[in-house]
């Protein structure tokens, strides 16, 4: 029972991180049909920023929050630049190749700067210990991450479903040309979403730091997981990204505790199953209108 709960909690923590990371990927794809393959590299840049800014251990909460904000700022800048570059590039294939190129360059620069070794990142002070959960000790930091995920989900829900900017985003996913015909510069909306999504991914790199650390190749793993989340949830769908992230978090945690050798295999089985049963994903955005 306790082992099961630990697995569920691990899954929720992973799901929270995946939601933060996958959200931007999904919205950018939904709005401009561009798979931002640099998304994982932006995440990794955030993780290495934590390595650079945080002392080895004894990290205070204030310092940690500063690192998260700094990563978000760097992510937003990277995202803004990527948005500009992709918008200046006609053709979806060229756009995808461009983001792939940016991703390779960023990853290479990071491994030149930080080396090939695995960097551990300490959890911030009041959350660096364990708390008793059903007689076992569970890392407090992961509970913090779950709390962050819940707050993020509510905040994103309010932004997307209740604000004017949110309705602009949903409308742009549904019919970008009609939004621009209403006098709205969809390029600006797009740049904003691109930057915000990249900010979340980079902040996610810091937040995931105490769990996943920082090392070369992590960018690709995270990008792949985020892609699976987006495909399972439905491209361009916020609710889909949340559901997909929670699902993949659970599958991964269960897989790691039950069948460690097949954990990543299980994730692709889950994706294949969803695609077989619901090719558009579990919660695709509504775009078509019956006429």
């Amino acid at each position, binding site marked *: 029972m306790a082992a099961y709960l630990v697995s569920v909690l691990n899954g929720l923590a992973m799901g929270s991180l995946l939601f933060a990371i996958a959200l931007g990927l999904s919205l950018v794809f939904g709005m401009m049909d561009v798979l931002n393959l640099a998304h994982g590299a932006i995440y990794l840049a955030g993780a290495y920023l934590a390595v650079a800014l945080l002392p080895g251990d004894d990290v205070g909460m204030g310092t940690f929050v500063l690192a998260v904000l700094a990563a978000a700022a760097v992510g937003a800048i990277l995202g803004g630049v990527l948005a500009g570059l992709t918008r200046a590039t006609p053709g979806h294939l060229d756009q995808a190749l461009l983001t792939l190129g940016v991703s390779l360059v960023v990853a290479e620069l990071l491994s030149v700067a930080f080396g090939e070794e695995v960097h551990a990142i300490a959890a911030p002070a009041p959350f660096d210990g364990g708390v008793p959960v059903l007689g076992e000790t569970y890392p407090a930091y992961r509970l913090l991450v779950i709390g962050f995920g819940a707050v993020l989900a509510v905040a994103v829900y309010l932004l997307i479903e209740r604000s004017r900017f949110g309705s602009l985003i949903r*409308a742009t996913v549904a019919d970008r*040309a009609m939004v*621009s015909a*209403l006098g*709205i*510069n969809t390029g600006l909306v797009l740049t904003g979403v691109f930057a915000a999504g990249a900010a979340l991914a980079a902040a996610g790199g810091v937040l995931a730091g105490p769990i996943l650390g920082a090392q070369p190749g992590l960018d690709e793993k995270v990008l792949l997981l985020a892609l699976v989340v987006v495909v399972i949830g439905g491209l361009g769908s916020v609710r889909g990204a949340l559901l997909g992230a929670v699902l993949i978090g659970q599958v991964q945690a269960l897989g790691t505790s039950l069948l460690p050798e097949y954990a990543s295999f299980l994730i692709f089985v889950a994706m294949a199953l969803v695609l077989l049963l619901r090719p558009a994903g579990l919660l695709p955005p*509504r775009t078509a*209108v019956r*006429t």
Partner: protein
Amino acid sequence: MTDVLTVRELRAGYAGTTVLDGVDLTVPANGVVALLGRNGAGKTTLIHTIMGLLRPYSGSVRLGDREIAGAAAHTVARSGVAIVPQGRRVFAPLTVEENLRIAAGRGHQAWTVERIYQLMPHLAERRANRGDQLSGGEQQMLAIGRALLRAPRLLLLDEPSDGLAPAVVDHVADLLEGLRGEGIAALLVEQDLHLAFRLADEVAVMQKGQIVHRSSTSEFRADRARAHALLGVG
């Protein structure tokens, strides 16, 4: 009378193909011009090119004395052009209210969401419903309301009667007729000739990407044989 829209020698198409093959067309200020023509003649392509949704190969589109050919759609929209597109294209995941609010920028005092609701009380009742929960007629009303909120000088209407029941078409026609006197010029693409004749002062006929006929509505109606030859109906 000055023209609000002047199209000259306009060429456009998709991926190198030519659909608009030198279109010349004017719409007088406050006037309504019906654009008729068979399926595939290029009417929607012309509407989209004027709106800036499709970049022309060459030619000129002037709004008043401002050149807008090749400008982005949001720039064209801000110059005072609004579109009620073929197929309506209301935003499916947005509520009626959100569909309208998104169009209601700041500073368009002439048209407010409240005024749209007064004009279309039925939409007010449905304000919390999503775009994809509306009937075809309701969607058409919403598409018209959304365009009006832009307070346009020129309204591009692409087959507003398409797919609607006759009673609903009458309702849409009443609504559009009620807009006379608002200072809005319109280019109206319409297959329903009764509707086109009721609303338009002038008729332009498009064939294979060119305007092949232009006359007043009454003159066009008087010559049934010519109308038949041009449109294959009547």
